[in-house]
């Protein structure tokens, strides 16, 4: 469990640094929590608030590895793209410019996250092209769960919250590994720890 937390920590801090450089602002990050969550309790972690979700499949040396998701409440998304695009109107609809900015931010952050974790594990992990969904957070995540939690009733979440007080932006970075992937990652972490001890 500690090993998984450390893996998430390294990935998330790379992603946070990347975001802070893009926004030229200070990003605070919570220590990533590795949460084992019962399916029936997912709504306590992801509400039905409308959010922008940039969703990636993890690809590379691990097949069907699961998903990495960058999720922001809609209000935060607009404040963030305003900051990047030099606009001020917060009370507006999401447009194509926002969508491509969100895709790009998600892409850069998730790449940083996966690069860092994969480097630690000594494997290649790449994000798929992003899929952007503006919808209820819970509804989008639930459909991904239908794929990763087909056989199980508990899922493992890597959950980091990113906050930028300067622009009152907050977002969440979630990794939702498929069960086989999780055991492979644990195996690799074990080997890594052993080789450090001997």
């Amino acid at each position, binding site marked *: 469990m500690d090993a998984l937390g450390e893996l998430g920590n390294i990935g998330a801090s790379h992603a946070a640094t990347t975001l802070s450089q893009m926004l030229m602002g200070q990003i605070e990050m919570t220590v990533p929590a590795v949460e084992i969550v*019962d*399916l*029936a*309790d*997912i*709504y*306590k972690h*992801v*509400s*039905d608030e*409308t959010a922008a979700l940039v*969703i990636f*499949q993890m690809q590379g040396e691990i097949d069907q590895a699961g998903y990495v998701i960058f999720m922001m409440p809609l209000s935060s998304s607009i404040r963030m793209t305003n900051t990047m695009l030099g606009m001020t109107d917060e009370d507006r609809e999401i447009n194509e410019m926002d969508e491509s900015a969100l895709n790009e931010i998600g892409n850069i952050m998730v790449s940083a996250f996966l690069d860092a974790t994969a480097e630690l594990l000594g494997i290649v992990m790449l994000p*798929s*092209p992003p*899929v952007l*969904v*503006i*919808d*209820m*957070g*819970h*509804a*989008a*995540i*639930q*459909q991904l*769960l*239908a*794929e990763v*939690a*087909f056989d199980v*009733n508990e899922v493992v979440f890597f959950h980091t919250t990113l906050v930028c007080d300067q622009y009152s932006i907050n977002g969440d970075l979630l990794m939702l590994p498929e069960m086989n992937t999780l055991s492979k990652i644990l195996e690799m972490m074990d080997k890594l720890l052993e080789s450090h001890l001997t």
Partner: protein
Amino acid sequence: MDTQQPGNEPRAIVIGIGDYHVGAEPMTSIGLGSCIGLILHDSKLGIGAMAHIMLPESGGKKDRPGKYADTALEIMLRDLARKGSSPKNLQAKLVGGAQMFANFSGNLSIGDRNAEAVKAGLKSHGIPIKGEDIGGSKGRTVQYCPANGFMVKIRRADGDCSEI
């Protein structure tokens, strides 16, 4: 199971993924994507049931009956019968079964398959479908209060509200 209080609505039992509830209390399922909220209502007794169904078939698994279309219907009917409800007084409504994103490989049609499985089950038990809001690409939150009749309130991700 837990309760929450959204705005001025009465306190409702939140039915999480794979869960179900039977009784007269207000019930809600939040953020239905490809999942189906199946609601059974007995207007004679003023009770009902809601399940948050995730997948079409249990394949023999019994550990979480609310998760699959086939086992959810069976367990709801059993628990309703225990409260004195007869299947011939029951009516059904369905919400959810959306396709949230089209660009990924994998279980693309899971929402449709869930809806088909639920409908097939209802048909085999002779339970009429009195209303449905299924398909499309948007998430939905659903509310139902058996004591106030068979009105089902739906709120979509874009803020639209409706009743079936």
